[in-house]
């Protein structure tokens, strides 16, 4: 049953997405957005989780989700007010749903009675409402996931998903606009009608554009299966049309093309048309029709028969359609329509209007699930392509350019196309930071409850897109940063009021793109870093020497030191000293940097600077001791010829470079890498780089070759990491060039200096 396992995996994937969406929607609802779109989205998410859970037999999950869903339904109808209490209950319920899903996924048993308390609360809130809704057998809701079931081997002959989903749109034909005039149309097709490839269904759809229709199939003529003529016509229909606008002529127009091939009778109906609720509607027929094209009219009849249970001779045909029929309760709850995918193309306009709102957006975004490995393979290949293309461009010297202009043009086009392809591939991997940000409101709620502080979370720029791998690495650092802000930054309400600040503290989480980087900032309006205390603790722990003087900025950076904590007491939120150093190391690992800025009494801002993508790097290609090296362009400030540079010597013998009134530490790459170079000092170059925290370092290289894009390759994959080297890359000529680790060089240079 590996297929079933696959479906399960898909279901759990969907569940995690839906749970995320729940978080997001409730965050908005908490912020005061009570629009029905939000509630519908919540309802849909819970409903989908429940439906799939039912298909896989996760009874506990389904039971809980059902109770929750009932509450949501009441809220949506306005029968239960969406008070703060209810919102809080719902948010808590989301957690429980998540637990149920996780338990189902991992095959873990939750303690018996888990969630019962909440379920009782739901029931208390919903009791007194319409018993039909709350007592409805839940199977009827399962149709969302029926498509999952049909592809299970051995069930090939079950109807394909489409008809069922289309069945779900029944409700749009329900909800009859009361009033208007009614017509009764009796329609009996002749066999020529079918022979001319006409289809009653299309006629009914056309009719449906005029108003609300009720279709009754007359099945009395259908013989037992043994007497059945394949091309015989046994079925006729009686249609009740309710419409403000239809006239007899307009109705007749619908049947214009089948005139003479059918018996048609159009009569005005009395205002109280006796339309039984159990009567199969047109839409149900419409839904079933595409499964069995060959049998169309007969099957429609069978469907009706199945519904009414009149004609046993069609039992076998009806058997095939059973799941569909079962899934179509006589009165469809509205949410099903909401979750149905695209309406049939020939749906009438009024219908489309009615299903406006979030669904439109939903239908507009079509997506497929792709294994990340496959995308990575494409990313790698595009990387190689970019390299090959830049190699070709490099090979084009002046004589070639003059001789083969067509070739030159071709290569230029190739360059553009590869650039475009690369951007497109990167965009596939990019995801909005929303996926991480949306987990934070809950964290802040929890922190607020634990600390007793009032904290409001603001998020800005959550649609900023960034590579998926980076996003995955962001969750932990952000959690630590927000914890830190809540625990150390934001003050207790009394303190805040005394300081003349609003009672509730604000943590602002923002993301923006700045050039080739993404900046993610966590900012709070708390007390700022207590520098005296930080310095005191640092001295006590020997992180800072007793006579070492530090600038404010250096003190702020101390919070990233491993094991460093200023909290007097270890709380279960923070204070254990693990945290900010984790942030730093995680962010470094993905090629980013962390910057802290603090204003006493006003707040603290932690900024993460992250690369847009991990795969491709814009670099400057240089030569050191005959070997190629590349320096990330993002860290280069400027390049200077050594002959024009202004060097000075420190008492230790270390060189410094004076540039624009600043003294910058100098690292000669050749000697740093223990290699010899025969290039004259005067002909070498200074590459001025900016490392983390705005600290500059001047690298001396033998030659600057040019700029290009490279794909980062790991050295560790087959070897090990090397100090001062961030990785390798393959150049257009097939040789390996090493990527200079500016940050690493800077810090080891500092270490050397202090050791000297």
């Amino acid at each position: 049953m590996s297929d079933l396992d696959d479906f399960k995996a898909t279901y759990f994937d969907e569940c995690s997405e839906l749970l995320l969406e729940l978080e997001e929607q409730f965050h908005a609802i908490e912020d005061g957005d009570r629009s029905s779109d939000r509630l519908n989205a919540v309802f849909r998410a819970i409903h989908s989780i429940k439906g799939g859970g039912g298909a896989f037999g996760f009874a506990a999950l389904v039971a809980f989700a059902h109770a929750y869903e009932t509450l949501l339904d009441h809220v949506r109808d306005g029968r239960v007010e969406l008070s703060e209490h209810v919102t809080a209950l719902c948010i808590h319920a989301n957690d429980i749903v998540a637990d149920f899903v996780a338990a189902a996924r991992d095959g873990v048993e939750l303690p018996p009675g888990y969630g019962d308390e909440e379920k009782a609360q739901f029931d208390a809130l919903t009791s007194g409402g319409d018993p039909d809704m709350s007592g409805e057998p839940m199977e009827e809701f399962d149709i969302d996931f029926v498509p999952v079931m049909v592809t299970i081997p051995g069930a090939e002959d079950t109807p394909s998903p489409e008809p069922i989903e289309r069945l779900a749109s029944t409700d749009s034909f329900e909800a009859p606009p009361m009033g208007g005039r009614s017509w009764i149309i009796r329609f009996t097709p002749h066999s020529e009608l079918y022979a001319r490839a006409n289809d009653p269904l299309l006629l009914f759809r056309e009719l449906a554009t005029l108003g609300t229709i009720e279709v009754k199939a007359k099945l009395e003529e259908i013989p037992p299966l043994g007497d059945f003529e394949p091309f015989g016509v046994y079925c006729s229909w009686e249609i009740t049309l309710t419409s403000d606008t239809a006239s007899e002529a307009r109705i007749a127009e619908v049947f214009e093309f089948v005139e003479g091939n059918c018996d048609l009778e159009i009569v005005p109906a009395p205002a109280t048309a006796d339309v039984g609720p159990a009567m199969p509607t047109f839409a149900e027929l419409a839904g079933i029709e595409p499964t069995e094209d060959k049998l169309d009219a007969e099957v429609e009849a069978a469907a009706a028969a199945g519904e009414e249970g009149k004609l046993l001779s069609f039992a076998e045909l009806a058997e095939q359609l059973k799941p569909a029929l079962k899934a179509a309760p006589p009165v469809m709850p509205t949410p099903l329509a909401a979750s149905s995918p695209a309406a049939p193309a020939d749906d009438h306009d009024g219908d489309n209007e009615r299903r406006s709102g979030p669904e439109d957006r939903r239908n507009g975004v079509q997506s497929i699930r792709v294994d990340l490995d496959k995308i990575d393979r494409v990313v790698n290949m595009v990387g190689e392509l970019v390299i090959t293309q830049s190699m070709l461009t490099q090979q084009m010297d002046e004589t070639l350019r003059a001789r083969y202009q067509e070739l030159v043009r071709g290569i230029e086009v190739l360059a553009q196309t590869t650039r475009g392809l690369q951007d497109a591939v990167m965009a596939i991997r990019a995801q909005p930071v929303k996926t991480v940000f949306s987990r934070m409101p809950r964290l802040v709620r929890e922190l607020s409850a634990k600390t007793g502080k009032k904290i409001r979370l603001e998020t800005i720029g959550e649609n900023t897109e960034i590579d998926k791998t980076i996003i995955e690495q962001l969750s932990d650092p952000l959690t630590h940063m927000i914890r830190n802000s809540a625990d150390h930054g934001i003050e207790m309400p009394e303190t805040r009021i005394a300081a003349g600040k609003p009672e509730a503290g604000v943590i602002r989480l923002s993301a923006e793109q700045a050039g080739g980087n993404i900046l993610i900032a966590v900012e709070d309006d708390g007390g700022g870093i207590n520098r005296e205390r930080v310095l005191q603790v640092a001295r006590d722990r020997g992180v800072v020497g007793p006579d070492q003087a530090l600038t404010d900025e250096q003190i702020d950076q101390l919070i990233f030191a491993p094991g460093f904590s200023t909290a007097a007491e270890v709380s279960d939120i923070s204070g254990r000293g693990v945290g900010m150093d984790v942030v730093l190391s995680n962010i470094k690992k993905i090629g980013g940097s962390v910057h802290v800025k603090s204003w006493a009494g006003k707040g603290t801002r932690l900024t993460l600077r992250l690369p847009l993508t991990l795969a491709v790097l814009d670099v400057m290609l240089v030569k050191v001791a005959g070997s190629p090296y590349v320096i990330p362009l993002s860290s280069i400030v400027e390049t200077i010829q050594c002959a024009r540079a202004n060097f000075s010597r420190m008492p230790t013998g270390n060189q410094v470079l004076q540039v624009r009134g600043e003294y910058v530490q100098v690292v000669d790459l050749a000697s740093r890498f223990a290699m010899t170079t025969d290039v004259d000092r005067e002909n070498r170059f200074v590459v001025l780089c900016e490392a983390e925290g705005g600290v500059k370092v001047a690298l001396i290289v033998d030659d600057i070759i040019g700029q290009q894009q490279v794909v980062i390759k790991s050295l560790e994959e087959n070897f090990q990491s090397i100090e001062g080297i961030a990785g390798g890359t393959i150049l257009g000529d097939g040789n390996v060039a090493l990527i200079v680790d500016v940050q690493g060089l800077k810090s080891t240079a500092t270490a050397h200096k202090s050791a000297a």
Partner: protein
Amino acid sequence: MEALAFKDDMAGTTAATANSLQLIAFSIGDQTYGVEITTVREIRAWNGATPLPNTREFVRGVINLRGTIVPIFDLRARFGEGQTSPTKNHVVVVMSVGEKWVGILVDAVSDILTVSKDEIHNVPEGNSIDTELLNGIVTHDNRMVGLIDLHAVVSGAKMDA
């Protein structure tokens, strides 16, 4: 000897039996060494390598092997006999060591040998480098073939601070 030579001829087409071992033999100077054939991924001519800073002298650098970066170890230097001065006639044997792929620079690849596992002798105690870098010794054509311990060869590549 007759029979052994015959086996050698068949080595390319028949798989090693349970109790025998197929080796790729290569030479450094006049000495022959071998590695198990199943670990060898590729044999290619020396075509230069990008030197790695701050590594021991036996790490010749890295090469591009179809998009991945593979380190090259100079076996002669690893044995403490000084760096090889490689020419186009020198050979890099690319092998897998655990999860990693590494290349070793040797003078030439000479043969494929099939030896019985029973014929593997222990490395005589004495020089620690020998016992560290060799797994055992087999005799072929009255010549000694040292079985290279790849894990030992590639370890300790970083320069001690």
